Every structure is written in C-alpha cells, then in structure tokens.
C-alpha cells in the first residue's frame, strides 16, 4: 500500500460484507450489507455468492474496477496465532518455529496451502529469570478458501493483492494498540473486540506479556441477544432478529441492573442481562485469567484496561468488563486507534495497523511473485552484467586510446632517434665495407718490391769496370727477383774475376738483397783486355706497401 493514496478494502464474513474506499487515510466511499439469510462459516460458497452479488453493484458505484484490493475475511479454515521464541534466536528461526508450531495446530498440510509468519513484537526487556522474546504471528488458510475468494473478487473486477484473516489482523492490531498505549511501569491490557473474535493483549512498557485470541465477538453478543426476551415490565416475550439485536446492542449498550443507559429502550434490562451474561462472563474470565498468568501479583492492581476494535463502541462494555475483572478501565480509544473503529467491522484492524496488516496470498500468486522476483533478478543481473561488460569495454577502449596517444606522442619524438639509428647502421655498413676492402687490399697488395730503391742501390754498388747490360726485376706477388746481365773488365789493379767477386759480394751485403745466385759466366776478350760476362740472380726483399725506405742513401742513380 505504500506510495498509494487510494486504498480499497473488502471485508467478508458470514454476517457482513463491506467495501470501503480510503484516500489519504480518509474514508471516501463505503458500502456494507448483511446477508439476508443466516449463514455460518460452513456455508462459505453461499457467503461468496452473496459477496459476489453485492460487489456487482458496489464496484461500479464506487468506481474501483481493476483497483488493487485488500481482503479482510473470516474463513472456515482460517488459523491465526502468536508464537514465542527467544529473541536471541533471530527472526528467521522464530518464523520457522512459528511455522512448525502452526503446522501442528491445523488440520491441513501447511506447505501445500497459504501461510505466512510475521514477527510482530520484540521484547525490549524481560522479567527476572527470563529472556526477551520474539512474538511471531502465524497465519494459515487453505488454498481453496483463498483461491475461491480471489476468483470471486476478480470476477467482480477487483484485483486482490492480500488476504488478511480477521483473527490475525485483530491479534496484530491488539498488539499494536498495546504498544501505542503502554507506558513504562504501568501494566496494561487491551481488549480488542472484533465481530467474530476478540484478542486480549497485555504487557508493560516494551514487553508483551500475552496476546490471546478468544472466539467471542460482537456477533456472539448479537446471537445471544437473539434469544427470546421480555419486553418492558410485562410478561410478553419477544425474540429479536439479528438485525434488531445488533441495533439494540450498539444503540443501547450493555444494560446494568439499574437499567439501560439509553432511557428510550423499553426492553426489560433484567431480561436482557442474563442473555448477555455468559458472553460477558467469558470475556471477564478470559481477561482475568490472562492477567493472573501474565502479570506478577504486585502488578495486577495497577493494570489498566482499554477496549478497542468494533466492540469499543458498545456502551458499557468496557466498564462491565473492567468491573468484572477488577481492574481500572481507561475510557477512550488508544491514541493511535482509528476513528473508524466504531463504524467498520474487522477491517478496522487494517486501518489501525496503518494498512500494513499481515496477509496471506495464494500459492499461485506467491509463485508468480517468486517468478517475477526471479525474472527481475535475472534482468537486474543481466543489466549489471552488461554494465560490467560495458565498463570493461570502456576501460579497454580508454586503454587503447591511451596506448595509441602515447605511441603517437613517442613516434614524433623518436623520429630523430630513428634517423640516428639509421645513421649508425649506415656508418657500420660503410665501415664494414671499408674494412673488407682494406683486408682485400692487404691480401692482394700487401707487399711490393721497392724497384726504384733496387735500381738506386745497383747504381751505387756497381763499380768502375763492371758494365750492366740488362736489368730485369720481377715480382709475381710472392717472390721478388732481379736478374743482372753484365760484363766485368780486368783493370791494371784488379783482375776481371776479382772485380766480379767484389761486385757480387757488395750486392750480397746490400740490405735489399736476400741472396745472390751466380748464373752463366764466360771469359771474353775485350780490346785485348780480359773480361768476364756474367748472369747474376738476386733474391730481393719485399716491403709492405707504402713502407719503402731507401735501403741505401738515395741519390740520383747513374747507369750502372
């Protein structure tokens, strides 16, 4: 109901059908009817037929077709009870305990039918020797009851969203009223009197001592009043119908031995009082017993009794019950009780609870709700997954852009470095080419015969009297040789052979000559002087290219 400004409530019971429309918490439309024939809870199909017939007219009248509806009902198999569990056990275990306890009290399998467990009160403190308790309201009803009710409402154009068992609502409303009215150090009892059942809830401060459901309500009193009674002071007896009895009860209240509070009533109070006495006595005894077992002896005298619910509008009921129980009666509704309490039936409990009444739902609806929740979870999960994937993609995209931007930035700056690398590579290639050329040069052209130096040396070493007719120098790259062909002449002081020997020795001593080999020699006469023609081979040194040095003093050689 949260977030809605318009609330629609349907109440269904054997004695009354009602459709109420609230807006902003104020009653703006209301239809109620009582079945023409006497119906009991066992006549559930008839009750629903009657309700359906009424709704056929009410729904269009009030313009609530298609609106979500809370249904307050009293069904044939409805079960409601409050179960206690240690507060330390936690709500989940407390609900489980209440569920197990409820399963033991009903005649139908709980799991296959509608049920609900709601924690409605947690003790803030505990009596000495006890521990705080968690009060769990357990509701159960057959699936058939809920389904039939739902179908009836849907056929009438309404959309039921919750099914509130009237006893359960009364229990919750009584506890709520007690919580609102309880004061520390002042024990109190709330007697919530509904149409078909009542609740006695007692407690002190932030502690709930008891909450009991008793099968006595205003309709019980109406039924009692329907028995034959004496009218006035005569001996005539009349039997009121339920309508008249209900009107008498709510208009004149509970009579005393002194008479009616409403002086216009002509029925003899002494005749009516015995009719009501068993019902009142039941209320008094139940209340007294509850107080006796729920409060310590020293608390009992201080107990204040409040009456709430539809029965609160019955004049004299509160004082009668308080007098019977022996406690003080506090007039007036509880501070948070609804002003509609008196005019509406059990739906008053829903109003009193601020539209947050504990409700049941059909298994089909529960399954649909569960499926819807699961689908919602799937959609949310998929959305989150897509969101995560999107974030992942965005993050990847960002990283890609960053990497590209950095690459672009570095590429610009690295152009110079790259050209330097290319320059190095080019330099290395050039250097290696040069080194290889140099190596080849050394291999092929590493040494050479110093021809000019040889010729100069020959010129310097050839003495007078030795005539060279041919000089042949050869260098095949591996060895260097010189071949000399000439003539040595005999002189006055030296024979030709001595001259040649001296010449040959001089050549052999030359640093450029490694050795000499004498070839063919022949004695000849030249102008009557003996001469020696010769062939002489010289093995020459080869110097590294460019390292030629004058082995002998360089001088412009003359022909040897």
């Amino acid at each position, binding site marked *: 109901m949260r977030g809605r400004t318009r609330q629609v409530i349907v109440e269904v019971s054997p004695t009354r059908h009602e459709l109420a429309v609230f807006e902003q918490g104020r009653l703006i439309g209301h239809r109620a009817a009582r079945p023409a024939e006497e119906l009991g809870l066992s006549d559930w199909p008839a009750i629903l037929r009657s309700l359906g017939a009424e709704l056929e007219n009410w729904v269009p009248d009030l313009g609530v077709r298609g609106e979500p509806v809370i249904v307050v009902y009293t069904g044939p198999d409805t079960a409601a009870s409050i179960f206690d569990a240690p507060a330390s056990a936690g709500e989940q275990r407390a609900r489980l305990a209440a569920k197990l306890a409820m399963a033991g009290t009903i005649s139908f399998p709980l799991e296959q039918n509608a049920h609900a467990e709601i924690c409605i009160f947690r003790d803030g403190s505990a009596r000495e020797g006890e521990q705080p308790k968690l009060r769990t309201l357990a509701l159960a009803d057959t699936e058939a009851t809920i389904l039939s009710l739902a179908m009836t409402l849907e056929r009438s154009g309404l959309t039921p969203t919750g099914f509130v068992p009237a006893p359960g609502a009364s229990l919750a409303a009584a506890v709520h009223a007690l919580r609102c009215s309880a004061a520390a150090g002042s024990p109190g009892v709330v007697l919530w009197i509904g149409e078909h059942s009542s609740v006695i809830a007692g407690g002190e401060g932030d502690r709930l001592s008891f909450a009991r459901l008793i099968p006595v309500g205003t309709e019980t009193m109406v039924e009692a009043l329907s028995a034959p009674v004496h009218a006035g002071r005569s001996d005539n007896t009349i039997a009121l119908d339920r309508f008249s009895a209900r009107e008498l009860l709510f208009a004149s209240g509970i009579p005393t031995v002194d008479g009616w509070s409403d002086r216009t009533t002509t029925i003899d109070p002494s005749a009516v009082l015995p009719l009501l006495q068993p019902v009142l006595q039941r209320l008094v005894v139940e209340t007294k017993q509850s107080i006796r077992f729920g409060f310590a002896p020293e608390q009992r005298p201080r107990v204040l009794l409040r009456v709430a619910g539809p029965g609160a509008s019955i004049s004299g009921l509160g004082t009668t019950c308080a007098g019977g129980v022996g406690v003080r009666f506090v007039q007036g509704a509880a501070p948070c009780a609804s002003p509609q309490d008196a005019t509406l039936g059990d739906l008053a409990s829903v109003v009193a609870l601020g539209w947050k009444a504990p409700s049941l739902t059909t298994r089909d609806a529960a399954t649909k709700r569960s499926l819807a929740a699961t689908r919602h979870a799937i959609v949310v999960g998929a959305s989150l997954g897509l969101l995560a994937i999107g974030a992942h993609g965005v993050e990847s995209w960002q990283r890609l852009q960053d*990497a590209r931007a950095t690459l672009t930035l570095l590429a610009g700056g690295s152009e110079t470095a790259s050209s330097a690398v290319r320059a190095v590579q080019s330099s290395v290639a050039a250097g290696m080419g040069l080194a290889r050329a140099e190596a080849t040069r050394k291999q092929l052209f590493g040494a050479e015969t110093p021809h000019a130096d040889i010729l100069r040396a020959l010129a310097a070493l050839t003495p007078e009297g030795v005539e060279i007719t041919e000089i042949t120098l050869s260098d095949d790259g591996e060895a260097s040789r010189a071949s000399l062909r000439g003539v040595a002449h005999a002189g006055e002081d030296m024979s030709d052979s001595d001259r040649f020997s001296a010449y040959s020795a001089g050549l052999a001593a030359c640093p450029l000559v490694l050795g000499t080999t004498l070839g063919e020699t022949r004695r000849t006469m030249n102008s009557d002087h003996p001469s020696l023609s010769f062939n002489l081979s010289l093995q020459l040194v080869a110097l590294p290219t460019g390292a030629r040095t004058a082995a002998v003093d360089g001088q412009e050689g003359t022909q040897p």
Partner: protein
Amino acid sequence: MTHEQARKLIAQLAIAAAVCAGVHAIGAGPLRTRALAAEAELASFIDQHDMNAAVLADLPRVVETRQLTDAGVRRFASRNQPALDESAMFTQVLDLAAQSGVSVEQVIPAGEGQRDVTLPAGAKPRPGDRRTRYTLVGGGSYGATTDFLERLQGDWAYCAVRQCRITPDYQAGSGGAVRFSLLLELFSFDAAPISLTPGTEGAP
C-alpha cells in the same frame, strides 16, 4: 513452481547469459585484445625508444667515425680509378712519365681478352674488386726511369710493377739512356657499404 515455469526461467537465464556473452564476445573482448596488443606494441616501442635514445647520445662519435670512413672510401675511390678507367690510367701514367722525364712510347693491355684478371683463390671478391695488367714501353735516363718507377709505385693507384726490364739504349748514344719495359698490375677494391641484411651481399 511447475516444470514449465522452471523451464522458462532457465531459458530466460540462458538468454540473458547469452546476451551478456555475445556482447562481451562482440564488443568488449576484441576491444580488450586490441588494447592489450596496443600496449604490447607500446612497450616494445618504448624499449626501442630507449635504445634509440642511447644511440642518439653516441651520435657525435658515430658521425666522427663516419667521416673517417668516408675519407677512407674516397681514398679508395681515387686510387681505384686507374684500374677501372683506361683513359684515366693512360692520362695519369703519361703525367707521371712527364714528371719523371721519361717517355712512354707504348701502353699495351696485357693479353687481349684477358684484360680483367680474376682475383686469386682465397680472396673474397666483391662487385667492385678488379685487377688489370698493362705493359709500358719507353725510354729515358736511368735516374728518370728510377724516379718513374718510384712514382708508379706511389699513391696514384693500387699499382704493382710485376716486371721491369731495363737495357741500355745504344741508339741514344752515350747519354746514359735506357730502354724500359714495365708490366703493371692495377687493382681496384670495392669499399662500398656492405648490406646488413643477410644474404643480399652477392658475388660480382
């Protein structure tokens, strides 16, 4: 919950998972792969960049080395010229002869059809490696011939005098003139940069 409802729920769950997986496979997955590849490229680039920066620091030394190399290459190019260009060889030989005071009467290429002599075994030839032989015939004074020989073995070319035959020039009288016949071998050496790419350095 009925089996049908459970089946529908599982199907919806599978569809949702498939949609997520599809979106991931189509969108986020490839994007992630591209981002990782770009980052790997960036890391490699940064390494390269660091190396290049180190090279950049050594650049002055590299430039200096390159200048020396280039000078060496130019020197080779200059001295290679006579072996590669006959007209250049002829001009320079005549210049040297003129400087020495000898007359060169004949320049005879050694062996028609064998002007280019292959390099000896063991050498690693390159496209520009070459050697040629010429015979020079001429005359002059002994001293001039000596000087001519010295100049021929100078740095005008890579020139080896393989054979030198000197005889007196009886026809010229008693002036000390000689006749000479020289067998020259001229070399050229390829000093071009080598290719740093393996396998691209070819034989001539």
